[in-house]
């Protein structure tokens, strides 16, 4: 975060790009090149914008409309006003979903980034790092269905692999990983396992780009390992970390396939204890025994969208700061 910038000193949201000193300088320096480029802003940006608007934005506007109605997915709509939203906010399961969403976005996020960082540091110049790097990326290539089957064989109580090993190691009462009270925690761990590899690969590659001279210089100045990490590695990785964290947060907000494949059989829904917002939205539309309720499903989708919007604005703030070059 930019030093000294607090929420209160930020300009109002109306101007998403705060006027800074450097920006003012840029405008004063505007060259003929700049002006000719400005005229091309539309031809450069709008083809992508149009496709994006047609495929994603327009349907989303319709989704907003659906969220104000009762609807089974086809046939007549029945006006509901804001009742889908008020009912959703009063639903205890929605509150559970909120807590779970929070845990996935921040709990798993912190875990993934911490482990990825650690691995990056540990594996950096070790023998076999290339192998390690290739291997940790592997889980992201495996279809979810394979992982979900593996899941059972690993964590079944009492004779899954993990508990069998624990018993061999002398643990008398191995944990029931998939029991009601533990299932969500086990899922969080699984998410970490699956995604850590991707971020490790990214971080490792980023560290590779840091010139070695910087470390040598730091070492000559007597900087210990911790100081070197603080003053060399971290500042130079900050940009990558912030880009990754935005992608993680937004991706984690809308992930639910994982919850679905890991905890239920095909066509069924997992226990509401395991729902997050995206799962809530899916569950309201695809309850295998019920009439699809696209009104509430859409209302929850809108909530996810609003949260994403907030993150997007926040990310602009973070990413806009001058980048460190080397």
């Amino acid at each position, binding site marked *: 975060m930019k030093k000294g910038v607090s929420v209160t000193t930020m300009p109002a949201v109306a101007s998403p790009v705060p006027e800074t000193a450097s920006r003012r300088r840029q405008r004063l320096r505007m060259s003929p090149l700049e002006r000719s480029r400005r005229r091309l802003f539309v031809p450069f940006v709008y083809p992508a914008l149009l496709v994006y608007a047609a495929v994603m934005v327009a349907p989303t506007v319709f989704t907003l409309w659906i969220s104000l109605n009762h609807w*089974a*997915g*086809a*046939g*007549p709509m029945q006006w509901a006003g804001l009742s889908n939203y008020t*009912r959703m906010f*009063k*639903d*205890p*399961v929605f509150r559970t979903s909120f807590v779970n969403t929070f845990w996935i976005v921040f709990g798993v996020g912190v875990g993934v980034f911490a482990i990825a960082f650690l691995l990056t540091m540990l594996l950096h110049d070790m023998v076999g790092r290339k192998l390690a790097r290739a291997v940790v990326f592997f889980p992201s290539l495996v279809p979810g269905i394979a992982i979900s089957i593996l*899941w*059972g064989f690993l*964590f*079944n*109580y*009492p*004779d*899954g692999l993990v508990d069998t090993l624990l018993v061999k190691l002398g643990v008398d009462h191995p944990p*029931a*990983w*998939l*029991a*009601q009270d*533990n299932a969500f925690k086990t899922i969080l761990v699984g998410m970490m396992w699956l995604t850590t590899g991707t971020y490790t690969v990214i971080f490792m590659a980023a560290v590779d780009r840091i010139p070695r001279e910087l470390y040598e210089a730091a070492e000559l100045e007597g900087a210990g390992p911790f100081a070197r990490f603080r003053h060399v590695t971290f500042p130079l990785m900050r940009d990558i970390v912030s880009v990754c964290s935005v992608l993680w947060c937004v991706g984690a907000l809308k992930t639910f396939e994982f919850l679905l494949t890991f*905890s*239920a*059989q*095909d*066509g*069924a*829904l997992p*226990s*509401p*204890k395991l729902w997050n917002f995206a799962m809530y939205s899916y*569950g*309201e539309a*695809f*309850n*295998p*025994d*019920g*009439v*699809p*309720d696209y009104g509430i499903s859409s209302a929850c989708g809108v909530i996810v969208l609003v949260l994403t919007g907030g993150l997007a604005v926040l990310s602009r703030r973070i990413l806009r700061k001058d980048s460190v070059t080397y």
Partner: protein
Amino acid sequence: MALGESMTRLAARRLLAAVSVGALAVTLTAACGGGGDAGPSGGAKQLTIWSSWLKGQPGQKFLQGVADDFEAKTGIKVTIEWKGNAAAKALLPALNGTEVPTDIIESTGGAITNALAPTGGLLDIGDVYQMKVPGTDQTVQQAVGDQAMSLSTPVDGTGAKAGGPVQIPYWASSSNVVFYNGKRFPDLVAAPPQDWDQFMAVLDAQKAKGRKPLALDGSIQSYSALYYTSFLSSIMGVDALAKASLDKSGRTWGADPGYLQAAQMVEKLARGGYFIEGYSASKFPAMENKWANDEADFNVNGTWLPGEVGSVAAPGFDFRAFPFPAVKGKKAPPLSVAVNGLGILKRAKNPDAAKQFAAFLLQRKYQEQVSSQLQDIPVIKGVPAPAPIQAVKDVFDRGDINTFRFPTGLADYLTKVFYELDDQLVFGKISAKEFVDKMVSQTAAYWQSKN
């Protein structure tokens, strides 16, 4: 038929899930190609079906066979898209389209009556029930019976019938069925237990030998719920769950001792150590696989079970089943049944051909194939079922099936309130008393959140 339907459907859905995706080779006909025909169905010589079976599955081979015969008999060209489990899910958005892509949707009863019917996209096919089954004097209604017809009719939020039937069923599956290995319990093959107490004596005898007699894949909530709902419908009747669920104050749960009694019977099983080790903390199908290898003795499950675990079962495993026994002194809980079949789309291009096909499908020779190929229950009375589930078919033919219809909107309630607390009861986390108390408070809270 209430909750039973939802559970059976769930399982039927699993059964329906199958081999690979439909071939591309299928030619485009009515769905997309025949846009030019003016006037619905006027002498159309074609018919399109979206099926929940997948290529290579027994059900697919069966349905393709029927379609071939139909084509040969009538000259109407039948095109079937093998869409698999997700057929209804894929069809739903298409109902908003300029034209519907198929004439018939072949799926589980639940997908047809609960997911598709509320959109108003399905035809009321009461008239098909009055058509004659080819080669017989029977009408379709006489052939499939009033109960199956009733189960094919959608209901509204109060459980009342909403319009006429929208499905012609051709096969059924049942969920509250007790499976066991006949080789190990020859006495039960000859004389199945008459009530729960007799069955309990068998369980206790097994327990005395150090066995944990009941297998249960607790990761499937609807399986766990089979115990409570079967006890409850034996004690209080099939509408008891719906009645208590719809009471917005939640107090019904606590007012009638029957709700507590059913819970106590579950509590006894849960806390008495009758369930197989790991049932509350393992992933389907770990427990049913153990059962198929005689690590447990009984499995309350559905008629699809033999097909599901057959390839894993111990050599010589003799699949046998009897319906869920009655609570002593009460009527047996009626069979929870899902009937599955064909729905016809309101905007179908060839509704007449579709209706003709539906009646054609119900001929006795095809019903016999349901038994021999699909390995599940043919809907028509007197057509035998596969040997392991013939005892269930007998009950089905007697008409002791649950035709109470659970109000559709309550699926959400089941997911969010009932299944959760039922799990805790079955897993021994809460006592029967706590279960009932929590049902009272959480039911009230649920309905309050809906205002």
